[in-house]
């Protein structure tokens, strides 16, 4: 099925919340998910992997926590950041990409077997970039920030007509998002949206 980038961002936010992330992290995940969609990455599969990972609360190997730490501090303090092991490294890449969206900077992200250079609106990878979504763990990750955007990098497909995703993945995310919904009660039906006066006149 085909979904819009806005749908990706909105569902990522709710599904992340349904999976137990704090609201501020959910906002970061949503922004990173939109960046992924803009690059044409299969963000629905990436979200399912991240959000259904039984170890998702383990902060030390969490790519979201890593991306946040990088985005919050590193850009203006230290040019090189390292992690021993991270799960779902595509999320570190995407969070860095989203953080660089309005920066005239690019980042080189490397671990054994992979070397990816990204800026806010594009990327260049040593391996098949699309396969990045399926990388489960990465070790000895190094991120180097450099000035300037990247000439000749793959451009994001922003003006495209959205993104194709697997209906099964999308439904799985909707089920996660549904955990944030409050079941309707008779009381809420009567008062929650302020009905009561006739509206058929």
């Amino acid at each position: 099925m085909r979904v819009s980038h806005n749908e990706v961002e909105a569902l990522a936010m709710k599904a992340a919340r349904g999976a137990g992330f704090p609201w501020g992290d959910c906002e970061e995940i949503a922004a990173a998910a939109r960046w992924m969609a803009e690059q044409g990455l299969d963000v629905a599969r990436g979200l399912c992997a991240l959000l259904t990972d039984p170890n998702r609360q383990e902060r030390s190997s969490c790519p979201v926590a890593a991306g946040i730490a990088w985005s919050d501090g590193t850009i203006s303090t230290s040019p090189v950041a390292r992690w021993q092991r991270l799960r779902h490294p595509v999320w570190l890449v995407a969070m860095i990409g989203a953080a660089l969206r309005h920066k005239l900077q690019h980042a080189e992200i490397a671990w054994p077997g992979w070397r990816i250079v990204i800026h806010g609106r594009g990327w260049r990878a040593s391996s098949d970039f699309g396969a990045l979504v399926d990388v489960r763990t990465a070790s000895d990750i190094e991120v180097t920030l450099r000035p300037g955007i990247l000439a000749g990098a793959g451009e994001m497909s922003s003006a495209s007509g959205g993104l194709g995703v697997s209906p099964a993945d999308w439904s799985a995310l909707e089920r996660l998002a549904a955990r944030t919904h409050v079941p309707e009660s008779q009381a809420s039906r009567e008062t929650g949206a302020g009905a009561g006066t006739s509206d058929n006149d």
Partner: protein
Amino acid sequence: MDDAEPMTAVGLRPPDQVMRLARLGAFHQTRLSFLRVLLRRIGRERWQYARPVFDLDDRGVGHAVYTVTRGPRSYSLVAFAHDLPPQMRTDRVIAEAWDATFALFDGVPTTTDVARLAANVPRQEAGRYLASELVLARANRSVRLFESVVESLAQGHQPDERQVGSTGYLMRTTAVYGNGKFGLADRDRIAAREELAGPFQAEMLTVWLIRAFTVDLVEHLARARDSHRAVRLLPRLRRRLGIGNATGLGMAPFLVRHPTLIHSWIAARETALARVRSLASAAPETRARFLRLLPKARRLIADWRTDDPVQAPRLPILLAEISSMERAAPELLASRHRPWDRLYKWGEETLSLEGQELLVSLMLEPHGALVDDLAGGMTVDETVAFRIDGTMSVRQLRDDIERHYAFALKLDFSRAEATRRFWYVSEEKLEPRLGDRFAEPGADLELPLAIGRDVSALHRALGSASPGESVAVFLTRHPEHRHTVRRVQIASRHPYAEIRDNLIGSDLRAVDVLRAKLSFFGCTRFDPRSDKWLRITLFQDAPFPDEIGAGDWDGWIWGVAESAPLAAPGVTT
């Protein structure tokens, strides 16, 4: 403030004055409102209009296509008219069938496109859409007016003018969706197009074309009923028909979730006011135009009907205040030093909030050349302000909270009444709702809209951190405060970003939030139907697409008296 204008001698009104719910809930449309910006453009640029398809049967069931063209681009409203049993008609978002459903198509649809839309648009949220569709909408008939207009026209006479004017519309839209919902085009697709770059321009265009459809539909039904006797609506009466809208809580979180956007709207309006107040003198012609507006404003307010216990008593006061303006303005505006500022200050000392904010709208009105450019600044890229500055110190963040969130720090959130409401999304319709924290389940699933309470909690947590610590380090210990830190940093740079009131108190009137947003859309005649939803009117007295090339596309909202065409409208079939 980063939007400060060095040329402006009178400063902007402070956010603590503007961003209160009581004042936001008294806002009126201005010439910067989105539907007015759209119609000024259409009139000025003389867009082309056509109705290539109008295929409705005698019961009014079928479809029609309305196309406007500007340069190389066309936009088409594809309208589907249905035969809805009365018992299925409800304005609430829980409805599953409507009198008419619509999509705004990017270009001119082929028959294949129309067939695909016919299989989806009538199902609204249950359908799926492509990036070639910009907006999805639906509308229900006004039971009060629709049938009586059809019957009058079928019998060969015009409907009762008073009834037409007081209801003000044949149909009400009950939802207008854009920006990627259900697979529609992302805003990115149109953001760079000059004609749709402003906020909600595609949505406003859709609603304006829907209005034209509602009139064509009653004329069609009248002809079907009696093709010999049926007449068309007089242009003057036709103008009196806008489009209604029912708006509920679904819209309220938008204002809270888009702080930089809201800042840009309010800052544009406040900058416009400051420019006018700063004028050294009032030109005689401008002064005269302002004074001529006052009786029109009175007529507009006199047409405004509501039974709401809060809004209804405000209206006679507002009418009396317009009379006060008529008495006071000639002398104040003759002043030799900043006459518009004198008038504004007089209003602040004399008028209710409704009256003050109406005065703001009226003062902007004759100053198009001075303020209209500000409409171009009402769009922002929200991703620019998104990133948290983790290098900020805890001390700085605390200072910013104390500077910009004094309203929150003053509230006592240990009182049950201060936190009685909670915002949530209902499972049944996936729409935002307001619940009672102490009487209903679901508070653990609360949406992050309790800004005042959360900022107050963040302020406390910062108090036990070392002042020199960085926000990044603080957040590694307190990820639960991350969304609030982001807001504080945004609000510190965008002073009109935040509603400076408690959004979860037992005394919250959610309709105040809705009205603020709807006033920016350009809606009139706010009619709260409870404290959680309201009806409004759009495009009443506006020109129709078949009038492009003539008439007044700027000041129409203040009444038809001077701008209605006298001749019959061009035949569009």
